[in-house]
């Protein structure tokens, strides 16, 4: 079955699916503008619905079983293209893929007596119902997004009057009472311009064994290493990373530090080792 679906994949370049967005011609541009989307599809449900609609099927158990191969082929392609998954995004895809496989397997097996035989059957049924529920729910919101889009679009033809009053009115404003010294103002600016530490998204982590890795913690680790070492290679900075997640977090932290102008990079030649320098002073 893998062969068949990858042939299909060859005929249907991944990009073509994305371009097919029915209600937003500018989607391709806008997507780059706004969000880091998982390659081409905003999530497993989006992909699944798209695959189903391409086959002009309604959302049924049969439809799900039919598109299973394509779904899995797609996530394989993405994996091959990206090299590695982002953990949080991959997990949803994997959960959906596993459920689809279960459904497909159940359909391939002899029909049996029609009664639920063991706990494994019950688990498949529950997973199926859950997947249906989530898929239908997602589809409903997708429909509403389309509706919102049309309303926004419709509304965009009207322009609100947004015109300041004549100057003689604004001169009536009470005189501005200013109390900040330049130093206080600078301190305020420093606080506002400091990189925000995002409140972490509360993710269901019960099923995960490894502890959550935070980029800001790893940023602190890097800062300590670099302040001591001055210049270090990326390899040196990550040699004590205990897991892939820590490695990724260090990498992201480096990007943030670079963005903030706290570090700079040196690379003698393409693909050569990356040397990181601490360029912010001591505070």
């Amino acid at each position, binding site marked *: 079955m893998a062969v068949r679906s990858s042939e299909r994949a060859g005929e249907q370049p991944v990009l073509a699916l994305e371009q097919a*967005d029915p209600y*937003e011609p*500018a*989607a391709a541009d*806008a*997507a780059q*503008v*706004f*969000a*880091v*989307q*998982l390659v081409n599809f*905003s*999530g*497993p*449900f*989006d992909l699944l619905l798209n695959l189903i609609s391409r086959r002009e099927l309604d959302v049924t158990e049969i439809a799900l079983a039919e598109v299973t191969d394509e779904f899995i082929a797609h996530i394989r392609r993405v994996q091959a293209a990206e090299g590695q998954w982002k953990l*949080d*995004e991959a997990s*949803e895809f994997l959960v*959906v893929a596993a459920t689809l496989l279960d459904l497909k397997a159940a359909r391939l097996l002899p029909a049996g007596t029609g009664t639920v035989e063991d706990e494994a059957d019950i688990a498949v049924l529950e997973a199926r119902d*859950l997947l249906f*529920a*989530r898929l*239908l*729910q*997602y*589809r*409903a*919101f*997708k*429909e*509403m*997004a*389309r*509706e*919102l*889009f049309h*309303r*926004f679009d*419709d*509304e*965009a*033809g*009207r*322009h*609100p*009057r*947004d*015109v*300041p*009053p004549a100057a003689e*009115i604004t001169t009536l404003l009470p005189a501005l009472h200013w109390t900040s010294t330049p130093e206080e103002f600078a301190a305020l600016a420093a606080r506002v311009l400091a990189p925000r530490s*995002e*409140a972490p*998204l*509360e*993710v*269901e982590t019960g099923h995960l064994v490894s502890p959550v890795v935070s980029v800001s913690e790893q940023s602190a680790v890097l800062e300590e290493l670099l302040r001591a070492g001055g210049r270090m290679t990326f390899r040196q900075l990550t040699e004590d990373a205990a897991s892939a997640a820590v490695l990724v977090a260090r990498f992201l932290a480096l990007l943030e530090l670079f963005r903030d102008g706290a570090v700079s990079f040196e690379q003698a030649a393409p693909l050569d080792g990356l040397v990181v320098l601490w360029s912010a002073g001591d505070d």
Partner: protein
Amino acid sequence: MTEPPVPDEFSPDAESPDPEPQPESTPSQDPAGESGAGSPALEELPGGVRAAVEAILMVADQPVTEDHLAAVLERPKDLVQRVLVDLRREYDGYTGGNSPTIEPAAPRGFELRNIAGGWRIYSRKHFSSVVADFVLDGRSSRLSQAALETLAVIAYRQPVSRARVSAIRGVAVDSVVRTLVQRGLVVEVETDPVSGAALYGTTALFLEKLGVGSVSELPRIAPHLPGIEALGEYDDTTF
């Protein structure tokens, strides 16, 4: 509307010659002495309360509520409300309404709309192509599909945490939510008492961009979601 015809003092420019001018009347609910004693009463200025409302609408940079207008003008809210409804009709090309013999006026190039809880002047839609040249200010960029879907979930599930939105869409939504907040379409409205997570809701700007009066006027989602009653709270129980 079974309202009586609007009293003369705020529709002095009715298109039809007024056969029997009404006496200079003060608005019914407004005790004569209440408005500021020093400056001349609005009713004595050319155009009266009606023109005063127009004057304020000219400088409003967001929908103005009837309460706000009533407070600034020191006139009863129901009077203000009738003036607004009357102006809207007039801009749309309806005349006083009592003289069917007179040819209806053409609509003006602008309209007065009651959205997001207030009233605001807009250019009329069918002139968008000529108007667009004058309002280009970079705010017209479109939302991505991901942003629209996230916005839809927040609009229909508010107040809602990012985790729940994420569960419904099947992907992380942090950066998309951040974008929506930056664009003023959603806002942190409260904090979940249990988890401490920020809960998001839509803003007045969202309603305004959508052209609706309130969240309750959003198109119904139920037809798209069979058995929503049963499924609706699904994400509550698992997340």
